[in-house]
């Protein structure tokens, strides 16, 4: 029974995921490699992070406002006070409030590159990512204390990867080839250490949520398998960039630059699709042992 309210609200949630990860990830890239980028490129990267934060902020608010419509299955219920109260008192309500505050701080502090702004932007980005641990399946699980750190590291590593793609795309075709290649190589060296945390923490959470091989056959398990397969394809694309195209970029081969840019675009869309799939998965499905179960304290009287 999917209604227009479902399609709209889940779609907005997917957009929120993509925009938040873009904002936080792009900020991470700017913070790590601002000096290597040069003033003009660094400003463009900050501008992208700021624009993504503003979009994420707007979409988060619209998603929050329309969530009661999905709760009741009708847009007319968007301003139902009792549903608004239920949402506000839930983990999702807290998550949205923390996310909005984090994104606002991030957007405002990306205005100019000062030391104070850098600290504020870091705090805003951290809040925006941490907001995901306030709601959802990790928040209602009895093993929340284990799941929350796994989730946060998983998300931070994913944001690092996603946010680096556009700046790397831009850097690949700009300026001296040696400088572009140096930036790509520095990113690759760090990515080799950071990206495995996406898989390790994701598998850690999956082992808690999926308790048997048979559960991989459920809708929730199928989504997890699809996400894992997508991650495998991403690794293959990243390896192609590192082994084949980056040496070509260093040598000034324009064919390698074009190849690199194509695979970066493919990586971007694949990660965006995985983020959107995660939004759908967590909106519609739950791990088998949480299906139909309701965490203590979640209800009209819940407080977070």
């Amino acid at each position: 029974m999917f209604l227009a309210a479902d399609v709209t609200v889940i779609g907005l949630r997917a957009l929120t995921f993509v925009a938040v990860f873009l904002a936080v990830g792009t900020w991470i890239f700017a913070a790590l490699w601002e000096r290597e980028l040069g003033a003009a490129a660094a400003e463009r990267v900050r501008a992208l992070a700021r624009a993504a934060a503003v979009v994420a902020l707007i979409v988060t608010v619209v998603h929050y406002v329309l969530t009661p419509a999905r709760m009741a299955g009708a847009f007319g219920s968007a301003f139902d006070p009792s549903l608004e109260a239920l949402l506000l008192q839930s983990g999702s309500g807290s998550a949205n409030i923390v996310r909005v505050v984090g994104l606002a701080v991030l957007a405002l502090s990306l205005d100019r590159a000062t030391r104070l702004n850098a600290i504020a932007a870091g705090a805003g980005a951290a809040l925006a990512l941490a907001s995901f641990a306030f709601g959802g399946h990790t928040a209602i699980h009895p093993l929340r204390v284990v799941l929350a750190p796994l989730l946060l590291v998983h998300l931070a590593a994913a944001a690092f990867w996603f946010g680096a793609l556009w700046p790397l795309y831009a850097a690949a075709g700009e300026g001296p080839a040696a400088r572009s290649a140096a930036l790509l190589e520095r990113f690759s060296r760090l990515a080799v250490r950071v990206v495995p945390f996406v898989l390790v923490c994701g598998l850690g959470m999956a082992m808690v949520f999926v308790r048997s091989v048979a559960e991989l056959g459920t809708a929730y398990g199928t989504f997890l398998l699809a996400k894992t397969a997508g991650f495998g394809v991403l690794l293959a694309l990243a390896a192609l960039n590192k082994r084949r195209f980056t040496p070509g970029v260093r040598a000034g081969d324009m064919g390698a630059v074009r190849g690199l840019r194509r695979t970066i675009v493919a990586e971007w869309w694949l990660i965006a699709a995985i983020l959107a799939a995660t939004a759908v998965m967590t909106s519609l499905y739950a791990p088998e042992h949480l299906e139909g179960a309701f965490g203590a304290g979640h209800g009209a009287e819940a407080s977070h």
Partner: protein
Amino acid sequence: MRYLLAAWLLALSSLAAAHTPLESSAPAENATVPGPVKQLLLAFGGDVRLTAVVLIDAQGATKKTAPVPAAVAKQFTLAVEEDLRPGAYTVTWRAVGADTHVVSGEIHFTIAAAQPL
């Protein structure tokens, strides 16, 4: 953009209704009941806030039921506020569970025609 939108709608429309913690109902799913149905009972596996219940007949006409209560509970009873003729009916329900997870589903039942004496 059109393709993205089409893919999104297709993906959502192809997904089965998820999170269905409805444990039992009266009338029960696919039940044929002999007499008049004066109330609907929905029992869930955990505390939920029931947000919508729509009762329709085989022609798609909506039958009036009592408003859903703004309470969190495991079991809900709603009065059917008009007489139901023999035939097939569908109850479409929606509820909000833990952490505002939306759960929904349908119950199908039939009211049997009175046997001639």
